[in-house]
C-alpha cells in the first residue's frame, strides 16, 4: 500500500504477542528506546486464542513499572488490529510516534547527558 509512517519505528517479529515478555519491553527502555508498541490481533481473534490477552496484562505491568521509576508509563502501548488493516497500522505508527515525541526522549538519555557534563 506504500503508506507512509515515520522512520523511527522498527519492527521485531514474534509468532504471537503472547511471546512478548515484560522483560523484553523493559530491556528496550533500558537500552534507550523512547517508546515500545506491542501489536497483536483483535481481542477475541487471537490466532492462538489468548496470547493477546496475556500480552495486554504484561504491557499493563510494564507500563506501571515504567511510571513508578520515572520513565513514563505512557511510552508503552498495546495496539490490536487485524493483519488486513495496513492503513490502520500506519495510523497507529504515526499516533505512537506523535505521542512519544510529545513525551520527549527517554529520560535516561537526558540523565546520561547530564552525568557526562
Amino acid at each position: 500500500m506504500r503508506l507512509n509512517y515515520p522512520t523511527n519505528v522498527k519492527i521485531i517479529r514474534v509468532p504471537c504477542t503472547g511471546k512478548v515478555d515484560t522483560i523484553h519491553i523493559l530491556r528496550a527502555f533500558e537500552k534507550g528506546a523512547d517508546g515500545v508498541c506491542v501489536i497483536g490481533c483483535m481481542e477475541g481473534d487471537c490466532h492462538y486464542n489468548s496470547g493477546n490477552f496475556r500480552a495486554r496484562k504484561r504491557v499493563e505491568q510494564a507500563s506501571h513499572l515504567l511510571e513508578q521509576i520515572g520513565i513514563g508509563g505512557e511510552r508503552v502501548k498495546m495496539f490490536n488490529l487485524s493483519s488486513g488493516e495496513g492503513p490502520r497500522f500506519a495510523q497507529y505508527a504515526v499516533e505512537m510516534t506523535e505521542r512519544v515525541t510529545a513525551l520527549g526522549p527517554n529520560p535516561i538519555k537526558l540523565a546520561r547527558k547530564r552525568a557526562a557534563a
Partner: protein
Amino acid sequence: MTAVNPYNKNLDDRRATFIEYPQAVPLAFAIDPKVCIGCGLCENICLAKAVRYADRIKESALRVGAVILSSGSEGYDPSGLDYFGYGRSPNVVTSEEFERILSASGPYRGHVMRPLDREEPRRIAWIQCVGSRDTNRCGNGYCSSVCCMYAIKEAMIAKEHIHGDLDCTIFNMDIRTFGKDYEKYYLRARDKEGVQFVKARIHTVDPIAETGDLAVRYVDESGAIREEIFSMVVLSVGLQIPRASVALAGQLGIELNKYNFVATDPFLPVTTSRPGIYTCGVFQGPKDIPSSITEASAAACAAGRDLAAARGTETRSIEIPDEIDVSGETPRIGVFVCNCGINIGGIVKVQEVQDYAATLPNVVYTDQNLFTCSQDTQDKIKDKIKAHRLNRVVVAACTPKTHEPMFQETLQACGINKYLFEMANIRNQNSWIHSNDPPAATRKAKDLVRAAVARAGTLHPLEEKKISVIPRALVVGGGVAGMNAALGLANQGFEAVLVEKEEKLGGLANRLTHTIEGADVGAYVDDLIRKVNDHPKIQVQTQSLIVGFTGFKGNFSTEVLVGPGMYERKIAHGAVVLATGAREYQPKEYGYGEDPRVVTQLELGARLAEKGAGDLNEVVMIQCVGSRNEENPNCSRICCQSAIKNALHIKAENPDANVYVLYRDIRTYGLLEDYYTEARAKGVLFFRYSPERPPEVVAGEAGVAVTFEDPILGRRLQVSADLLALSAGMVAEDTEELGSIMKLARNAEGYFMEAHVKLRPVEMATEGVFVCGTAHSPKLLSETIAQAYAAASRATTFLSQSEMTLSAVVAQVDADKCASCLVCVRSCPYGVPRINAEGVSEIDPALCHGCGICAGECPAKAIELNWYEDDQLLCKVEALLEGVL
C-alpha cells in the same frame, strides 16, 4: 490511465495497470485492456521483464478426471427498483458498496462517509430482501441466506467506526440468523448495541434534495403509515447466479433449477446431473462462508473418490541433500542485499548497506542482487554458500511472508538447516513507507540489517521431527454424518473404524421419514447402512463406548469397550472424525408429556407417515420451542422447514384441514423459501407471536385450546386443536465424558467447537481431529451429508502423507529450571504442557502450536520457544538500540 474501480464498486478510481485488491492471489499486476491506450511503456520500464505486452488469450486443453464448479454468484443489481431511490441518490447504496465503504482498504480508507457529500451518517437504514424472496419485481423467489447476518454485521461495524452516535435500523420481514451462534450475535446487536429491527416492507425511499438525506416511508404493524429520515440507506441485495454461469452450465450439460442454481439431490448435495462434475458454494445454493468452505471440501471428497485410484501418479517429489552439521562452528554469516528493481534500490543506497553489512560481527560475505527472489539468483546464492562455507544467511529484501519458505529451500538445497536463515525487511517496512526520506531509509536499512545479523549469530539448527501417520481414521458416531464420513474415507482407500454407542446405525435419521423435497429418508438410511457394512475398508463396532484416548496427530490410540460383553479393544489410528449427533429437545412447556395430543414435529412426521392426516381438522404448530430462549439462546435451524414440511403433508392429504403456525421468524432460508410460499398459497395460516407473550395452551376434552395474539388484527384468537405440534429444537448429544477423555472443546450449548468458525469449519483445534454433522451444530440432512464429506476430505488430506513433518518452532522446558508451578499448564490455550513422571513440565513437540505463551508466562524462565528464544529476540532489541545511550 485511470478508470473507475469496479472492485470498490465504482466508488473510486484505479489505473489501467492495477492489482485488484491487497489480498489478490496471485498478487501481481494486470492490464485493463478497456482502458489501456496502447503506449507499451509498462513493458519497457519493467526491470524484471515481467510484462508481455502482446499477450493474447490462449486456449489450452486439460485432461482431468473430475470437475468442480464453484463459479459463485453476483450481487443483485437493484437499478430496476426505482422506488428505492438507487441511482437517484448516491446515498442509497447496495450492501456491496457499503462493505467497500467500511473497508480499511476501500475507497474511503475505512472512514464511514456517505458518497454524496462525504459526511458521516447519523442514521442508517438497511432494507432487507432486495432481490430475494421477490417474484414480483425480479424472478428471485428464494432467500439469499446471508443478508440478515451481513446487515447486522455492517450495522455493528459502522457503529464501531463512527465514534459518535449512529442509529441503525434494519427493516425486515424475518430475521434469519439461523447459523451456529448467529442468534446470539443478533441479540447482542439488538439488546446491547441498540440496533433497531423493524418488521416492515419499505414502500418508498425519497431523496431529500436540500440535505441529501433520505425519507423512508413504510407501514408499521399497527397499520399506521410512518416516515423516517435517514442519512443513508443500504439495500441488502441478494445473491444470484450470473448469466455466464448459466451459459457454462449449458455447455457442460449440467441441470439447473428454476433459479439457475445447480440442481442437486438432497442426499447428494455436491453432485450435479453429469457424472464426474461436482459443485459447491453459492452455485449450489445461497449460503454463507462457513457452509461454502464446508461444501468446497465436500466437493473435493466426492471428486477425490473418482480420482483415488490415480493418487500420486502425477506428483513430483524433491530431493533434499543431507544436512551438514554446523553445530560446533562459529557463525559465518552471508548477507545478500536486494535492490528489488527500483523498489528498494530507488530509495535506499544498497551499496552502502552492503558495505556496512561487511563490517558487522561474524559477517564473512556480502552481495547484492537486482531481484534476490529470481531463480538464477537462487543458484548464485547456493554457489556462494558453498564457496564461502556460509552457515548462516541473511537476506535483506522484502517481507518474509512472500519468500521466506523459498529462501529456506535454497539453504536446504545446500545442506544448511532452514532455521539458520533471517530476513531483514528493508522494503515493506522501509523503502516503501519512507519514500519521502531516502537518507533516513538508508540509515534504517542499516539498522535493520544490523539487527538481522545479530539474530543470525544466535540462531542454531533446529530439528523438524518426522512422525509416521497411521492411515486409518476413527469415526465416532454411526449416524448419517458418521456413515458418510466413513464412506468418504474408505472410498478414497483409507481404513475407517466406526464406533456407535447404540445397537443400530442411523442415529436421529432413524426417526425421519421424508425430506421436505420428498426424498425417502428411510430408504436412504437403509442403503447407507448396507454400504457401510459391506465396505471392506470399514469396520463397524456398535454398542461401543470410548473409555480412553492418547497420542497425537497421526498416532492416536483409543480404548473402546465393545458390545454388551464390554470387551476391551485398542484402536490405533491417525485421525478422528467426531459425528456424535444431536437429539430432539424434549419440551417441558405447553403440556407436552401430559396430553397425547401435544407432540413434537418428529412425532408428527412419524404419525403422518403411519396414520395420515385424514382425521385432522385443526392443527396448531408452535415454533421455537426450546430454542431462542434463556436456556438455549440459539436457533435450531431446521424447525421452520420441519413444520412447513408437515403442514404441506397435512394439506396434501386433507386440503380442508386448518393448519396454524405460530412463529417468531420464519427461517426457510435458501431454496427452502419456495416451500414457505407454497404453504401460504395452500392456505396454511402463519401468526407471529412475541416471546414476551407466548401462546397459552389448555388441554380440554374437546380439544387442545391454544390462545394467541394476531398482530395484524390486534386481537387474541383461540383455536381448539386436534393436534398441537411443538417445533422442538435440537439439543447436542451429551458428550461431556467423551469431551474430557479426548480433550475436546465444546461451547456452552455442548456442541463441538471448531478451530475457526469461518475458515476451518470441520477441524478441531487439536490437529488430526475433525467434526461433522449435528455434533457441530443443528443442520439439515443434506447439510450433514456435505459436512461429513468435508470432514472425510480434510481427514484424507491429513492421512495421505506417509509421514508428517512437525514444525521445529515449538516450546521446550528445561527440566532443571522447572519449578513445577503449573503456570504453563494453565496458560496454554491447547492444554499441551503436562507434568511428567519426573514431576516437571513437559511439552510434546507434536502437540505444541508454537505460540510462545507458556514461555512468556513461566515464572522460572524454564521454557524457551525454538527460533524465538529470549536472547534471539533481545539481541535484536539491543542491536536496534546500539549507540543510543
